[in-house]
């Protein structure tokens, strides 16, 4: 067993204490090679985990990350509060065009969001809040509010791993909670389309897994792309060779800003406003998806105490000395998978030059965020930085997607690790 000794667990805790396992995190030893091989095959073949290898990196950890139940309870509670605050803020911002303009969203999307048409309904709301253990306690780097992924790893893979560790349990089953919520909203026999962009296997696998979960609930789920949705009087119809007809729901694993770049003939605005068919996630999710969301807080009537406590200071890049002060990192407003997180010391000079250029030309599409010092966790593979993504489905915590990385930035090359909860620690 490996445990970390570190600092304050939550901001409210007194500083300088907590020698030993301060974050309530440890790892177990890896399971046997043969057992892991069988588990991996099940994750790949049953759980649609189709990218278990990225270059030379195996993306499934052979050991679980274990969290004390008390810590999990606290993170889950924090995620639920973050979710409630985000939804309240989104509603207020949606009424304030001047704030919508500060989020770095494409103009076409902004135009639709500020229109007077009623919002297209949503079958449910799912978010994932990424928590990190840092020298200042747990911190949140962002919310994946528009199209969160990781369901198979957080649900199926984690459940498989839990079978090998009696006494430990998964933090939840986000895919199960998600699919039950959808089935309840669209009807047990409902027909829905799951949309993704062709050629993006990492997105197809998410949709294939979620479609399998919906089928377990009795729904009819079809994979498609946004261009194959026809809107007739605000009702979505699937118009394909394999199914033609009205839909009870649309699940988009397709970012809002990508939709807004489709040709007008796709009538993509109905995904956000004016539609009658429920679409997941709802239009307003793009507000908190924008990493510039914190720049609007000052002007809001809604208070966001938990967000303010957990999110590092976030500023417009024009307002802080990010070029000379290494305490800042940069990212784009619509950063996914950490791919545009820019930290000077981790970049080649030429990449840093291009980033500086881009920030200077398009400062409104970027933000500067105070860096936090992630506390690595000892693992059988060596020290690893941890990200625990806590899902909320309709505002209730539903499980967690955990990742480990050798680097301080968690990106597409991070390793997926099953997060198991220890109720007896």
């Amino acid at each position, binding site marked *: 067993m490996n445990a970390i000794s570190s600092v304050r667990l939550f901001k409210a805790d007194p500083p300088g204490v907590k020698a030993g396992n301060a974050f309530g995190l440890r790892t177990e030893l890896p399971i046997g090679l043969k057992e892991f091989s069988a588990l991996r095959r099940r994750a790949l*073949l049953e759980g649609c985990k189709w990218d278990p290898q990225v270059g*030379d990196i195996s993306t499934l950890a052979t050991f679980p990350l274990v969290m004390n139940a008390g810590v999990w309870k606290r993170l889950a509670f924090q995620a639920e509060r973050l979710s409630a605050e985000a939804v309240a803020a989104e509603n207020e911002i949606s009424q304030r065009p001047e704030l919508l303009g500060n989020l770095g969203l494409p103009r076409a999307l902004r135009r639709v969001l500020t229109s007077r048409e009623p919002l297209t309904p949503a079958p449910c709301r799912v978010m994932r809040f990424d928590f990190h253990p840092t020298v200042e306690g747990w911190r949140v780097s962002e919310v994946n509010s528009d199209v969160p992924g990781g369901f198979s790893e957080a649900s199926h893979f984690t459940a498989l791993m839990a079978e090998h560790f009696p006494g430990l349990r998964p933090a939840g089953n986000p895919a199960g909670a998600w699919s039950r919520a959808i089935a309840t909203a669209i009807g047990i026999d409902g027909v829905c389309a799951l949309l993704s962009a062709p050629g*993006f*296997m990492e997105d197809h696998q998410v949709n294939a897994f979620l479609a399998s979960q919906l089928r377990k609930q009795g729904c009819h789920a079809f994979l498609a792309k946004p261009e194959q949705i026809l809107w007739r009087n605000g009702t979505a119809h699937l118009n*394909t060779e394999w199914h033609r007809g009205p839909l009870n729901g649309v699940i988009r694993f397709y970012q809002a800003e990508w939709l807004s770049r489709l040709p007008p003939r796709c009538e993509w605005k109905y995904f956000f406003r004016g539609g009658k068919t429920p679409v997941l996630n709802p239009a307003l999710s793009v507000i908190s998806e924008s990493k510039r969301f914190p720049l609007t807080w000052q002007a809001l009537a809604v208070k966001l105490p938990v967000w303010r406590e957990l999110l590092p200071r976030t500023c417009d890049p024009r307002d802080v000395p990010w070029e000379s002060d290494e305490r800042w990192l940069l990212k784009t407003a619509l950063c996914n998978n950490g791919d545009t997180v820019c930290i000077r010391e981790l970049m080649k000079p030429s990449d840093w030059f291009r980033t500086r250029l881009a920030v200077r030309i398009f400062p409104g599409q970027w933000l500067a965020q105070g860096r936090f010092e992630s506390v690595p966790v000892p693992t059988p593979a060596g020290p690893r930085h941890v990200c625990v993504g806590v899902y909320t489905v309709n505002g209730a915590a539903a499980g967690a997607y955990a990742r480990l990385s050798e680097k301080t930035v968690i990106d597409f090359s991070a390793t997926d690790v099953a997060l198991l909860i220890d109720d007896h620690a």
Partner: protein
Amino acid sequence: MHNDQLFLIWAPDESPWSRWAKPVLFSHIDAAPPIAPARDSTVDMTWLPSSNSEVALVLDLPGAEGVNAGVAAASCGYRPVPLYNAVPSPFFADVLSAPAVGAVAEVDLLPVLGALKNTSLQLAELSLPSNAPPAFLLDSNRHGSGLTVKPGEFDNRSICFTTDFPSANFMLANGIRRVLVIQRSRIEPLSDLAYVLRRWQDGGIALQRAQVDFSAAPQPFEIRKPSWYGAMFQRALAAVGLRRAGSCGFGAWVATSAGG
């Protein structure tokens, strides 16, 4: 045999190359209809270099031919590593019927599924050694038949990335010094594969190419820095908003995944 056993045959634990085998087709293989092997499914690969000559193969061949050539290469001591990375059908069914799937999908993967199933016993019986060099299998039809897809079709075109393959360092560490690309009726590799080859070349791996019918002996070649080699730069531009990123996914700049 079920998908788990079939996958284990194609990606056995003891091979260091199995980690790269793509599982997506095996996820669907239980539902694939039985497909009789084509009459001319046997591929003569006896001309291949000896499997202990530090060579890895990339078989970029259409449909089932790649699988059959992979098994023929296995007879010569190479470990076939299936890198088919596309979803065969927009719906899951207990049985994927050939007419239904063939009619709706831009890239018909049922022949590949059938070939993987049909040749698995043959592959298992070869009992390849754990150090057998890899023969990476790609479907040269993966980009589809044209630039556009019919509106109602299932758009299952795919591209391969450098991250779908081991790095040059890993190849060199495992005794691979040369890569032989085998194609049918093409001289230059497809653009996505060329990018992978260029990375290997940059990492010190020599490249050769040949036609599957062995119309000429393998020839050394180099991937010159093509205009699209700036894809990474374009990707960076896309990421920072200087280029339109991924509005349609396929055919656009390679953008990041939609999900977070």
